[in-house]
C-alpha cells in the first residue's frame, strides 16, 4: 500500500518538476509546480509529519505559487521570454552548481553523519494526542527561542526593506469623494 502510494506520488512529483522546467507557458509551469508541491505534501503525510505537510500546503501551494501566478497574470509576461543571457558563464555555472547539489544530496542519503539518522518516521511525540504540533512548539519557544526571534526580526527587516525599495515620488492621497 505504502509502496504503491510512494511510486504514484513520486511519478506525479517528478512529472510536475519536469513540467516546470520544460513548459513553454509560465502559467502552466506554475501549475506544474503546484502538482509537485501537493505530491511532496502527501509524502510528508506518509511520514507522519502532518504539521510539515500542512505548512507545505499553506505556505508553498496557497501563498508562494499564488504570488507567482499573480505576478505573471498581472504583468503579462506570458508573451515571449528572453532567451539570450546577459552573462555568458551563467549556463556553465548552473551546470556545475547543479552537479554539486546532486552530489551533496547523494552523500547525505548514503550517510548519517550530517543529519544524525538515515531517516525518521512517525510522530514526534507518541503519548500526546497532537504530538507533532506540541513538540515542535515547545522546541521553538524554549531551546530555539533565540534563532526563532532572530528569524522574525529578519523577516520584518525584509518587509521594511521591500517597502523602502518600492517607494517612488510623492503624491497626494485622494480626498473623500474625490476621483484619484
Amino acid at each position: 500500500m505504502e509502496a504503491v502510494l510512494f511510486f504514484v506520488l513520486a511519478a506525479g512529483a517528478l512529472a510536475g518538476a519536469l513540467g516546470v522546467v520544460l513548459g513553454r507557458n509560465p502559467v502552466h509551469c506554475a501549475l506544474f509546480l503546484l502538482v509537485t508541491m501537493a505530491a511532496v505534501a502527501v509524502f510528508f503525510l506518509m511520514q507522519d509529519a502532518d504539521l510539515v505537510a500542512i505548512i507545505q500546503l499553506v505556505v508553498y501551494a496557497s501563498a508562494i505559487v499564488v504570488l507567482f501566478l499573480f505576478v505573471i497574470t498581472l504583468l503579462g509576461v506570458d508573451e515571449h521570454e528572453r532567451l539570450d543571457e546577459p552573462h555568458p558563464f551563467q549556463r556553465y555555472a548552473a551546470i556545475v552548481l547543479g552537479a554539486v547539489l546532486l552530489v551533496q544530496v547523494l552523500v547525505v542519503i548514503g550517510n548519517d553523519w550530517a543529519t544524525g539518522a538515515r531517516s525518521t518516521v512517525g510522530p514526534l511525540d507518541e503519548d500526546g494526542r497532537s504530538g507533532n504540533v506540541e513538540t515542535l512548539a515547545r522546541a521553538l519557544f524554549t531551546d530555539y527561542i533565540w534563532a526563532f526571534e532572530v528569524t522574525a526580526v529578519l523577516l520584518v527587516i525584509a518587509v521594511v526593506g521591500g517597502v523602502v525599495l518600492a517607494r517612488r515620488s510623492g503624491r497626494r492621497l485622494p480626498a473623500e469623494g474625490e476621483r484619484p
Partner: protein
Amino acid sequence: MTGVPVVALDPLFDGGEITWSVFGVVAIKVVVAFAFLLVAVMLYIWGMRKVIADMQNRIGPNRAGPFGVLQTLADGIKLFFKEQSIPSSADRPVFRLAPYLSIMPAFLMFCVVPVGGRVSILGHETYLQVVDLPVGALFVLAMSGLGVYGIMLAGWASGSKYPLLGSVRATAQLLSYEAAFGLAVLGVLIQAGTLSTRGIVDEQAWDGWASFATEWYWAAAFVPFVIFLIAATAETNHPPFDLVEAEQELVGGFNTEYTGIRFAIFFLAEFMNVITMSAIATTLFLGGPSGPGLGFLAADNVVNVWLMPVFWFLVKVLALLYCTIWVRASLPRMRYDRLMALGWKYLIEVAVLWVLVSAALVVAREEGWNVWVVTPIVAAAALGAFGVLYLCMPRPGEHVEEFR
C-alpha cells in the same frame, strides 16, 4: 502504512489496521458528506431566492415542485444541457481545469467539520465527520488559500479583458482578507489550545445554559467572531463584498466567458463555500454539534446520540446562513478602496491585537494572576497600541509617498 496515526484522531483507526469495514465507513462518510453538500446548495439557493423575494415583497420561484423547491434542480439541468463555448483566445487546458480547482477546496474544507457526536457505524466507533486531522484548523486555512486558484486561473485563461480584470481584483481581495481570516481563527486556537476541529468542539461541550455564554467561543472570543464573519463573507465573495462579479463594472467578472455546466460548477462552488464557511464558523465559535439533548430520553438513546447533535449543528448553520441572506438583501456593494481599507487598516490590526490580548489572558489564567487586574491593563495597552497605529495612518487628502 505506518499505523496511520496521522490521518485521524478518530477512534475508528484505534485498531491500527485498515479492514474492509473501516474502509466502508470512510467511504460512506465521504459519499454522504458530498451528497449533503450538493443538496444543501440546492436548498440554500432556493431558500435565498425565497427569503430575498419575501424581503422585497415578491413571490420568488414557485413553479417547479412544491413552493418552487426544485427550481435550482431545473436550472442545473438546463445548464447541463447547454452548449459549452470556449473563446478562441482562451488557454484551453487551464480554461477546462479552473472550475474543478474552484470546487475542490470548497468540498475538502467541509471534511474537517464535526457534524455530529460519537456514533457507531458497521460496528465501529467513530466521530460523525469525514476526518479529524490533528491540524484541522490549519487545513481550513490551506483550503481557503487554495480556493483562489479557480477564480484566478478562470480569469486568466479566458483570454479576454473583463474576466482578467475581475480575477485580478478577486485575487487581491482574497489574499487581503486571508490574513484577517487566519488571525481570527488564531484567536480561537489560543483559547482552545488545540488545532483539531473535534478538540475545539469538545472544548465547547454543552453543560447547561451557562456553558452557552462561558464555554462557547462566540462570547469568549467575540472580536475574532465578528472579524471571522466579515472576512469569511469577503472570502466567499458574498455581498456586500461581491466586487468579483460586479455586473455593472465587469460584465460578469471572472466567469464572463463560461457557459453551461462549467459556469454551473463555479456557481456551485461559490454557494458551497458559503455553506462550508458557515459550518466552520459554527465549529469554531458556536460549539458545533453541542447542545442540549432530549431530557426525557436516556443519554445513550439513539435519538440523543445520533439526531440531536446533527440537529443542533444544522440549526446553527441555518441561523448563520439566514444572516448571510439578510446581509445580502440589505447592504449595497462596497467600494473597492473602502474594502481594502477595511481589511488592511482595521480588521488585521484588531485581529493581531486581540491575539496578543487573549494570549496574555490565557497566560494569566494558567499562572493564577488576578484576572480583574490583568484584563484592564492588557485592554488599555491594546487600545493604546491601536490608537498609535491609527494616528500613523494617512488621512484622506494628506500628502503621502506613492507606492508602486
